[in-house]
């Protein structure tokens, strides 16, 4: 029995929640789960199938690996190829294809690419390999960015001079806005990210009901958490009172984690970012500030500019925008599989395509 996890997976309590949801008269609601972790949980527990057709759950661009543009992956690959560099990365990025290669292929060709669980581990590798330059591949949203910022501050404190970060961090609220602005999909509500919100709180989402007339609820990652979130959204829609609420109250406070944000803001500044599927979105990424440029991989290494190219037939972009599902993609399951992925949505375990492939039951994928 793992505390604060197992209690939220109780099948009996889940049945009761599902019954409550089904008792509502409203039908054909479209909710988007923004976060990759939610996509995986929904598929793992078969929630999409349980809730359909009363509620249709769409997967949005919430997987930081999937939304990393080819050009950025190419930068990481170029760094990994340099003999003086040890490229450290979270496991998620290893197999993601860039325009021409992947970190996994670079490793097979002799590049020093190492998987780490934490930026702390990358710091230790830097300490232990003073003759090399250790670059940490910084992907992730606001959950991860503060941890990377903290690692840079620690490197500064401990005078670790061979530690660098390639910052590809992205921000959630701007991309939710960009998605809603595109007007492509009509949504009735949003299942808001859980751990991003632990950092930023719920106030940054207030623009959603204010400007777009739909509500959002911050959700946890266990099945009961997600079902509770859906129930809360349905009640909002029924009462025509769109608002921002927190279902994941044990993990998220409205004011978030101030200290984490301070640390993030000390090291990073907001910049425009390139999102796969959405293109350039203003003020949606993080760049290392000038005063920390000694730790900035972009400022410290020369990378030849090779034009990025997208894979033919890959519709990851549209899948990320919720316009298509993996089943609409011609390459899904045939040319594009987890062993031979074409796009990141299949490689990343948070990606919609990987989730559909691994967990899709007879009706789960729909």
């Amino acid at each position, binding site marked *: 029995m793992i*505390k*604060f996890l197992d209690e939220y997976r109780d099948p009996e309590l889940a049945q009761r929640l599902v019954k409550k949801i089904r008792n509502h008269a409203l039908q054909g609601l479209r909710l988007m789960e923004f*976060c990759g972790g939610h996509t995986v949980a929904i598929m793992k527990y078969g929630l999409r199938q349980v809730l359909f057709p009363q509620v249709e759950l769409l997967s949005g661009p919430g997987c930081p690996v999937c939304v990393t543009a080819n050009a950025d992956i190419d930068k990481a690959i170029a760094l990994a190829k340099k003999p003086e560099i040890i490229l450290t990365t979270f496991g998620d990025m290893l197999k993601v294809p860039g325009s021409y290669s992947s970190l996994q292929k670079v490793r097979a060709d002799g590049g020093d690419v190492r998987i780490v669980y934490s930026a702390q581990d990358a710091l230790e590798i830097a300490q232990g390999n003073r003759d090399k330059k250790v670059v940490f591949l910084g992907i*992730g949203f606001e959950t991860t960015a503060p941890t990377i910022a903290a690692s840079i501050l*620690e490197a500064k404190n401990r005078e670790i001079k061979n530690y660098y970060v390639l910052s590809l961090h992205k921000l959630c609220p701007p991309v939710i806005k960009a998605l809603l602005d595109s007007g492509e999909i009509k949504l009735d509500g949003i299942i808001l990210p859980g*751990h991003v919100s632990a*950092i930023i709180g719920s106030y940054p989402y207030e623009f959603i009901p204010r400007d777009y007339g739909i509500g959002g609820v911050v959700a946890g990652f266990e099945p009961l*958490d997600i079902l509770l979130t859906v129930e809360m959204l349905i009640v909002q829609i029924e009462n025509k009172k769109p608002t921002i609420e927190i279902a994941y*109250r044990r993990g998220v406070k409205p004011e978030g984690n101030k200290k984490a944000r301070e*640390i993030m803001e000390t090291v990073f500044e907001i910049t425009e970012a390139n999102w796969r599927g959405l293109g350039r979105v203003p003020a949606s990424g993080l760049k290392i500030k000038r005063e920390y440029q000694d730790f900035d991989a972009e400022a410290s290494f020369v990378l030849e500019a090779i034009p990025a190219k997208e894979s033919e037939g890959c519709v990851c972009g549209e899948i990320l925008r919720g316009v298509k599902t993996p089943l609409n993609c011609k390459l899904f399951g045939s040319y594009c599989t987890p062993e031979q992925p074409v796009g990141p949505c299949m490689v990343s375990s948070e990606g919609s395509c990987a989730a559909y492939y691994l967990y899709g039951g007879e009706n789960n994928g729909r």
Partner: protein
Amino acid sequence: MCLAVPFQVKAIEGQHAEVEIGGVSRNVSIALTPDVKVGDYILVHTGYSIGVVDEDEAQETLKLFNELGG
């Protein structure tokens, strides 16, 4: 997003804490949650504590589940 798992704090030393879940232990950074105490449950994401689990709220949520549809 982002995998974060509830660990319990067993010991604190400066900016680090020894934490444990189900028999798995690790040293994590508490730079982002400097006010944690021994015994707290914290959410750990990639080796950093990102927040303290609010145990009262956890109980409230469970109570809510039990009441809903009951």
